């Protein structure tokens, strides 16, 4: 079976992002970029399916400007076979990304599409579900376990209060949660090999999509600050404060 993985280039998770002084947007000049952590888990899952002999090919797609080829190469170094870069300027919204991915799905006919559950920049948690709806596929979101069957996939999902297992007809969409797997590090030889793997570039027009904007960014601001309180000296003093000052316990 063929697996398609979508990856997003985002600010590295170690970077503390701040609003620009004029509040127009976040400051993204000269910050370290990386593959979105949930997308990395998606790549790892696909590569494991290939190593287990379940998947025959892992295709990785990313949507963005030229720089996102870097993240495609990272995914190739982790074990994906080839890349597809859909060139799009600015920040395409999740619905538009889902439409572009639907185009890629139509061209590639994967049996399984794996995406991260959300990107750590926009925190939208939408693209996988939207792609599934547009392509008429079932979805296993927030996956902590994925088992491929005969023409089906069973996905164990992290839901409020526990786990839920669903079975989906293939082709299907899976979005990854944290505990699905622990991504490997790319070895130097694999990084070198990744440079020679095929990477195709497509335009939105190639996929029949005219990118639209539905939501405008009016501005950004830092979150409301919470001021530090006091340090207590002992457990006894803490309990006293909670009882008599904060009055949150009795």
């Amino acid at each position, binding site marked *: 079976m063929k697996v398609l993985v979508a990856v997003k280039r985002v600010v590295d998770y170690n970077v503390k992002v*701040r609003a620009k002084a004029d509040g127009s947007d*976040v400051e993204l000049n000269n910050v370290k970029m990386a593959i979105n952590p949930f997308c990395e888990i998606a790549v790892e899952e696909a590569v494991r399916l290939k190593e287990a002999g379940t998947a025959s090919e892992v295709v990785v797609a990313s949507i963005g400007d030229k720089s996102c080829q870097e993240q495609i190469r990272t995914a190739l170094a982790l074990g994906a076979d080839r890349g597809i870069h859909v060139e799009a300027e600015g920040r395409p*919204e999740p*619905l538009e990304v*889902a439409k572009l991915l639907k185009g890629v799905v139509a061209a590639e006919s994967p049996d399984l599409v794996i995406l991260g559950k959300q990107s750590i*920049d926009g*925190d*939208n*948690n*939408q693209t996988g*579900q*939207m792609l*599934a*709806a547009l392509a*008429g*596929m*079932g*979805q296993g*979101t*927030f996956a902590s376990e994925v088992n491929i069957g005969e023409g089906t996939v069973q996905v164990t*999902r*992290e*839901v*409020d*209060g*526990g*786990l*839920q*297992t*669903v*079975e*989906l*007809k293939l082709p299907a969409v899976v979005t990854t*949660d*944290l*505990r699905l797997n622990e991504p490997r590090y790319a070895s130097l030889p694999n990084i070198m090999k990744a440079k020679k793997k095929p990477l195709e570039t497509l335009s939105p027009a190639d996929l029949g999509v005219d990118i639209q*904007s539905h*939501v*405008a*960014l*009016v*501005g*950004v*601001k*830092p*979150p409301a600050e*919470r001021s*530090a*309180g*006091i*340090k*207590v000296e*002992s*457990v*006894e003093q803490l*309990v006293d404060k*909670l009882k008599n000052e*904060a009055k*949150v*316990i009795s």
Partner: protein
Amino acid sequence: MKTLIVAEHDNQSLKAATLNAVAAAQQLGGDVDVLVVGSGCEGAANAAAAVAGVGTVLCADNSAYEHQLAENVSLAVAEAASSYDCTMAPATANGKNVMPRVAALLDVAQISDITAVIDADTFERPIYAGNVIATVKSSDSKKVITVRTTAFDAAPAEGGTATVQSMAAAHDAGVSSFIGEEVAVSDRPELTSASVVISGGRGMQNGDNFSMLEGIADKLNAAIGASRAAVDAGFVPNDYQVGQTGKIVAPDLYIAVGISGAIQHLAGMKDSKVIVAINKDEDAPIFQVADYGLVADLFSALPELETAL
């Protein structure tokens, strides 16, 4: 302005998160109706009809919706949404699963996890793990929104006199089925609605040590949570996770034990009324948001705290 709230429920009863979404919808002004999609969900529909301020409850009751599979539920929601200006759901695991599908079916954007309503088109929402609050303006004529429940005070669960209308919609997309679930059985309150939460972090060192939180949780009738670091380390299941990629909580009292206070964790709990931090590292960022900080080794402080309560 007509807003439809997609209820969070378990067929028998309405989940409290629905009340927060109703409150957010009331800030938009206009009519607020509630849609209950389930199977044998009369109980939930009647509870929704009792919520103050709700005009009509639409009830799509069909066996195809028994486990609220997103593929089927989204079709019912999209059908009902066609007569509304705005469709909203709480940003629970369910809401996050279903609503983007609804938005895609309607060919509109979704605005995720709003924390404030500025006007009918403009909303605030946290991005970058809560490091930044974005103000966004939608140009879609129909809106699909998920609501961060902790940002809106719940509408009263009683006092409403809505009528319940059944909706014929029976949609089975036929691509997914329910296999089973493992729901953590606990006598403790639910993490997102508990008035006291005690959470452990990497400092707990292993999963067994989380039992040290249990005695305290029992005494305070608290829910137990964890930081992402503790979940990543495999100490506890992911449904314990408090943070931007986990659950967002805002209890009256939040006790953070052995948690350093990464921004992604703070994003999930900083709206708590009173925050207590217990950590042996006096420079831990968690102390910058704590009302009461105790610099101490948790392995001696926790037993002491349990005894003192």
